[in-house]
């Protein structure tokens, strides 16, 4: 999905023992480092994506191209940055599991799986999809939201989040979230023909575990469920927006 809606980095601090505050300091330091690394990584993604879109001359032998064509080159430029940092974001689920951050585990893991599935299983495996505008839009949406989200978290640990950054975080999602979700669905839908033809990720019977998997059916199922999950998360983000932006103004 487009944006991660977890309310991270609010560890509680009402105990006084020295070992506890040292451990808390360590955790905060580690989280700060993690969020910094992710911020840098996603900045690289955004930079490469913007380069593909705004400076096409460098990659298209000087030909002038329209926006759609430029978007199709985005994945080629950005994939080397998106893949490691998106996979790395699994750490956020682990942070929730270990209690470093106060956010629930299940939504975190579902969001990571959703995004990584679209990135690795759908787009990365089906090469023709990498040259589509949907892929370009997807990378850009993700990059913009993550470039705001991770600095927000990092500064949140230092309790130095500027109001304008918070405002961006809880406002940019309004157009970007649906755009991102729509591109994810389009990519999944377009991949189905290819998946069926080459029987990608299929598992056939007979086998010792008596199990079979039809990836095209799985994609259909995900496509049916997606709008509902998206709606739920989208409204949750609005609810968060009202909460966060209201308290800041008050």
């Amino acid at each position: 999905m487009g944006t991660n809606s977890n309310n991270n980095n609010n560890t509680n601090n009402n105990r006084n023992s020295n070992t506890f505050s040292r451990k808390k300091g360590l955790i905060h330091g580690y989280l700060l480092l993690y969020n910094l690394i992710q911020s840098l990584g996603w900045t690289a993604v955004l930079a490469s994506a913007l380069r593909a879109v705004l400076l096409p001359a460098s990659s298209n032998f000087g030909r002038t191209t329209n926006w759609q064509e430029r978007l199709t080159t985005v994945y080629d430029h950005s994939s080397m940055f998106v893949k490691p940092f998106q996979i790395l974001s699994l750490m956020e689920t682990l942070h929730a599991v270990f209690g470093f951050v106060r956010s629930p585990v299940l939504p975190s893991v579902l969001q990571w799986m959703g995004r990584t599935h679209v990135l690795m299983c759908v787009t990365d495996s089906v090469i023709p999809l990498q040259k589509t505008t949907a892929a370009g839009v997807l990378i850009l949406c993700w990059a913009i939201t993550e470039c705001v989200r991770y600095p927000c978290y990092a500064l949140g640990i230092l309790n130095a989040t500027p109001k304008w950054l918070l405002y961006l975080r809880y406002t940019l999602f309004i157009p970007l979230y649906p755009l991102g979700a729509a591109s994810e669905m389009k990519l999944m839908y377009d991949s189905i023909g290819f998946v069926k033809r080459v029987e990608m990720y299929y598992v056939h019977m007979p086998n010792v575990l008596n199990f079979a998997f039809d990836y095209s059916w799985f994609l259909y199922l995900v496509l049916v469920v997606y709008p509902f999950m998206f709606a739920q998360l989208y409204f949750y983000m609005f609810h968060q927006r009202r909460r966060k932006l209201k308290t800041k103004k008050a």
Partner: protein
Amino acid sequence: MKRFLSNVRRAGNNESLGEFGKMKLHVCSSSNPTRQLETIDDLPEDATVLDLKKRFHMKKRKYYPSRQRFTKFINKSETEKEEEEEEEKKTKKNVFKGEALVPDGKKLSEFGIGYGDVVLFKDLGPQISYQAVFFWEYFGPLMVYLPFYFYRERIYGRFFGFSPKECAKPFVRAQTLALWFHSAHYAKRIFETFFVHSFSRATMPIFNLIRNCGYYWTFAGLMSYFINHPRYTSPGDRQVTIGFVLSALFQLGNFRCHVIQKRLRSSGGSSSSSSSSSETKYVIPSGFLFDYVTCANYCCEIYQWLGFNIATQTAFGYLFLMAGMSQMFPWAVQKHKRLKKLFDGTNGRKKFKRRFIVLPPFF
């Protein structure tokens, strides 16, 4: 004289004194206490929660008693309210909501509710009886399993596209036995629903019916699809026998556990929503496996499905087992904690012996 004075004390500034022996309550919405829904003023002084619910139902026909949920209202002064609004934002709990008025048989006065007090009402949504839910969530799997066995050619041949020759293959021993075991298990569960289980709560929200049925029916269908598949690979004969023997033993064990638990309830065990007692009388289950495992019924259930999966060996069968375990474990831990806390050896109560929670010899 005392009663007259207590009525004076309780009556608010705007309340006129009512008759002796009568209770008057204002019912407000639990999500917005400033919104008053009804005033009920013909309750006897020793009215129970159920009486309140019945009166409320007479005024608002849509909300039958099992759909009503009342909680006590906590009236705070203004300064306290502001402090608690901050608290509320952090913990997201409504600070004016007091304790829930359960069970139905308890008197309102026992909660400290008096003349002119406010109670908060919440609509629990359309309700359905436990028995109805249990029946449909167990009847479905029983039925859903059968077509994959009896209409093999039609399902695997015509719908899924396997060759008719393949579909005409005779069934392996494991597949036929699995049919019997699966059907017997759910038939036993339906029998227990009507003749063994006694439910502490009468109803649950109707959404649970859809959710539970979805879970059980989907897994039954998936397991059945793979077990009765033309390309099913059966494990060895000995493995099949051992698996089903284990499964049978633990099914019987599970049934015995349920009978023991039922006897606990009928001899004055746990709370019942229609009982007049206001105490929750828990009794430590004893006998059979309960001396060694707190939730012996879950233990037998898990091992029974393990036996079934050893015999049939399907990925989805094991997945079903994992899903069941992931639900039963938290329940078992809760029950174990509850009993341990209640039976701490003080005040003449028995001390809860150390025992396995749900899965000997592991946990």
